C-alpha cells in the first residue's frame, strides 16, 4: 500500500462517526469497555484484535444491530454525521439504511439469489421497474465478485450456495442498497485469495465515496485495505491510528505483541 496516499486521504476527510465512552454489557459480560473512536469519512477503517475482544460487538453498535440482542446494553455516545444515533428520535431503520452491514456468519435469506440481492433495493424503492432492478442486482453481484458463479442460477435458493459464495452474496446484498457507511465483519474469512482480492478492490472503490469499517483477522488485509486501524483487546480500544503507524510503530505494547504474534 501507498502510505502517503493513505495519510493523505485520512487527513482530508471529516469525521463520519464519533464514539465516546461506549460500553456494552451482555448481561454480566462487559464486552466493550469505554471505547472512544473517530471514524473518518471516505476512509477504510480496520478493526483488529484477538478473537472475542469485542470487534463485532462494537461494529454492531454502529448501526444499532445490538438492539436485537436481548440483554445487550449499550451506553455512551455514538454520533454519525453529528447526530447521536442512540437519540430516541433516531429511526434505527433509516440509520441502518445509511449504515449497511455484512455479518460475520453469512446469513442469506431462504429466498432465491436474485431476491436476496433485490430485497434491499426493493424496500428502499431504488428501482423504478424490473429492468432497473435487474441492473441493480447484476451490478451488486458483480461487485460482490459472485456474478459469474450465479448468473445461471439466479433463481436458485441463496441457502444452497457454498460458504464463500454465501459470504459474497451477503456482500452483494449489502452493497446493493448503497449505504453511506459499510460495516463488514470479516467479509473475506471464507474466501480464496482471488475472491478476497476482488472484495478488497470493491472496498477500495467504495472508499471513494463512503466510509468502510472492516473487521479482519488478517493483518495483511488490514494493511492492504485500510487507512486507519483500531486495535481492540479485551473490550478496550487499545490503539487507534494510521494503519501504517500501527503496523510499523505501535505505541502500546499490547498492540505490538499482537502484531508480532505474541498475544492472542
Amino acid at each position: 500500500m501507498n502510505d502517503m496516499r493513505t495519510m493523505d486521504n485520512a487527513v482530508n476527510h471529516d469525521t463520519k462517526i464519533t464514539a465516546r465512552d461506549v460500553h456494552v454489557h451482555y448481561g454480566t459480560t462487559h464486552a466493550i469497555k469505554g471505547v472512544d473512536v473517530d471514524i473518518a469519512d471516505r476512509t477504510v477503517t480496520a478493526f483488529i484484535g484477538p478473537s472475542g475482544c469485542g470487534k463485532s460487538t462494537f461494529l454492531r453498535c454502529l448501526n444499532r444491530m445490538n438492539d436485537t440482542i436481548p440483554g445487550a446494553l449499550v451506553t455512551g455516545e455514538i454520533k454519525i454525521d453529528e447526530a447521536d444515533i442512540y437519540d430516541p428520535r433516531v429511526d434505527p431503520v433509516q440509520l441502518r439504511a445509511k449504515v449497511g452491514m455484512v455479518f460475520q456468519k453469512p446469513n442469506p435469506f431462504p429466498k432465491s439469489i436474485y431476491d436476496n440481492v433485490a430485497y434491499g433495493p426493493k424496500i428502499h424503492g431504488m428501482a423504478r421497474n424490473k429492468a432497473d432492478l435487474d441492473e441493480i442486482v447484476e451490478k451488486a453481484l458483480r461487485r460482490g465478485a459472485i456474478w459469474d458463479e450465479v448468473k445461471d442460477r439466479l433463481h436458485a435458493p441463496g441457502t444452497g450456495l457454498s460458504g464463500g459464495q454465501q459470504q459474497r452474496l451477503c456482500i452483494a446484498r449489502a452493497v446493493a442498497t448503497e449505504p453511506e457507511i459499510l460495516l463488514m465483519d470479516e467479509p473475506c474469512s471464507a474466501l480464496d485469495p482471488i475472491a478476497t482480492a476482488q472484495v478488497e478492490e470493491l472496498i477500495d472503490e467504495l472508499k471513494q465515496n463512503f466510509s468502510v469499517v472492516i473487521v479482519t483477522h488478517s493483518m495483511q488485509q488490514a494493511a492492504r485495505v485500510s487507512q486507519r486501524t483500531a486495535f481492540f483487546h479485551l473490550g478496550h480500544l487499545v490503539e487507534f491510528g494510521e494503519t501504517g503507524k500501527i503496523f510499523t510503530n505501535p505505541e502500546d505494547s499490547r498492540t505490538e505483541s499482537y502484531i508480532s504474534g505474541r498475544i492472542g
Partner: protein
Amino acid sequence: MPTLPIVLIVLAIAVAAYLLARSRAQRAAAREGRRLHSLPNYYGWTGALYAAGPALLLLAVWLVAQPVATRMAVWPVLEAEAAPNAQPALLMADVQRLAAGIDAAVASGRVPAAEAGDIPAEELRELMAGQGVALGSDVTPATRQAALRWRGLSAGGDLARTLAVIGLALVGAAFGVSRAKPDFRARNAVETAMRGTLIGAALLAILTTVGIVLALIFNTIEFFRLYPAAEFFFGSTWSPSFGGGSELGILPLLWGTLYISIIALLVAVPIGLFAAIYLAEYAHKNVRSWAKPMLEMLAGIPTIVYGLFALLTVGPLLVDLFGRNGALGVNWMQGGTAVMTAGLVMGIMLIPFVSSLSDDIINAVPQSLRDGSLGLGATRSETVRQVVLPAALPGIVGAVLLAASRAIGETMIVVLGAGAAARLSMNPFDAMTTVTAKIVSQLTGDADFSSPEALVAFALGMTLFVITLALNVVALWIVRRYREQYE
C-alpha cells in the same frame, strides 16, 4: 392367571434382563479390554426389549385369538340344537357370559369349584342373575354344556397362555442377555425398536382413518340403497320429513359449511396472525407470556358458550346493524342467526389456533435472518412480511389448516348461531347450516334409525371426509411447493 399379573411378571423379567445385559456387556468389555459399541444402557435396553417385546406381543395376540379359537371349538356343541335362524354370535355371547358367570360364582364361593359342572340348567339363570350376569334367554342343556366346555377350554388356554408368555419372556431375556457382547450393536437394535414404535404411532392415523371409514361405510351403503346417490350429491334441497319423500340434497349443506368456514377463517386468520406477529416480534416478553395463554383460553371455552354468545349477543348485535331497522339501514338481515353470526363467533374460537401455533413457528425463525434484513435497513414489518413469514410459512399454513379443519368440523356454534335452514344463498346474513350440524341433528333426533333420514348422517360424514381429504391433498401440494427452507 389374569392379564395384569402376567404383564407385571414380564416387566419384572424385563427389568432383570436390563440389569443383567448391561452388566454383562460392561464386564465383557472390561475383561477383553475393548470398548463397547454402544453405551451400556443400550445393552440393558436390548435385553429388556427382547424379554418384554415378543412376550407382550404374544400375550396380545393370544388374548384376541383365544376366544375366537375357543368359540370355534365350542360351536359344534351348540350347533345341533340351535334353531335354524339362530345367531351363533348371540348364542356364543350367552355361553361366554354364562361361563364367566359360573367362574364368578365359583370365585365368590357361592358354588364350590368341584360342583360347578353339576348345576342343572334350570338353576343357572337364577344363579347368574344373583351374580349380576345378563343372559339372553333361559339356559338350555346345550348352552350349559357349551358353557362348561368353554370353561374347560379357557382354563386350559389361560394356563397355556401364562406359561407361554412367561416362557417366551424368559427365553427372550436369555437371548437378549447372551447378545450383550462388546461388538453387538446395541444402540442400533434399540433404535430400530424405537423407530418401529414411531412408525406404529404414525400408522395409528391410518388406523383411525380406517376405523372411521369402517364405522361409516356400512350405514352409508345402506343409505344409498334407500336413497338415490345422484339426488344426494346433486340435490339442491335439503328437507327431511318423517312421512317419507324427504329431499336430502347435500349441496346446500356443503355450501353452508364452506361459507361459514370461510367467514370464520377471514376472522381468525388475520387476527390470529397479526396477534402472533405482534407477540413474537414486538411484544415485551412479559406481555407475551401473559397474552398467549390468555388467548389460548379462547380455545378452551366450551363451544356451547360460543353458541349461546352467537345467539344471544352477536346475532342481535348484527341485526341492530344490518337488520330491517338497523343502524346501517340496509335490511340485509332477517334474523339473528346467520352465516355471519356463526362465522364471526367461530372465528373468535379459532384465533388461538392460528395465533399460538404461528407464534411458536415465527419465534423459531433464526434471529440471523432478522438481523440480515434489519441490517439492510428494512423496517420490522418489512422484515416480518418478507423474510420471517415466508420462512415460517409451512408452520403457519399448518396452523391455518388446523383452524380450517376445526371450522369445518364445528357443530355447536353452527346449531345455535347459524340457524338450521339449509339453503343455497349468497347473502352472508341469511341463515344456513352445515354438514356437521346436520350429522348431529339427524343422528340424535326422533327419526327411525333405519330410515334414510337417520342414515343420511353417515353418508354426510363420509362425504365430508372424502372432501376434506381431497382438500388436504391440495394443501399438501401447495405447502410443498412454497416451502422456504432456512439455512
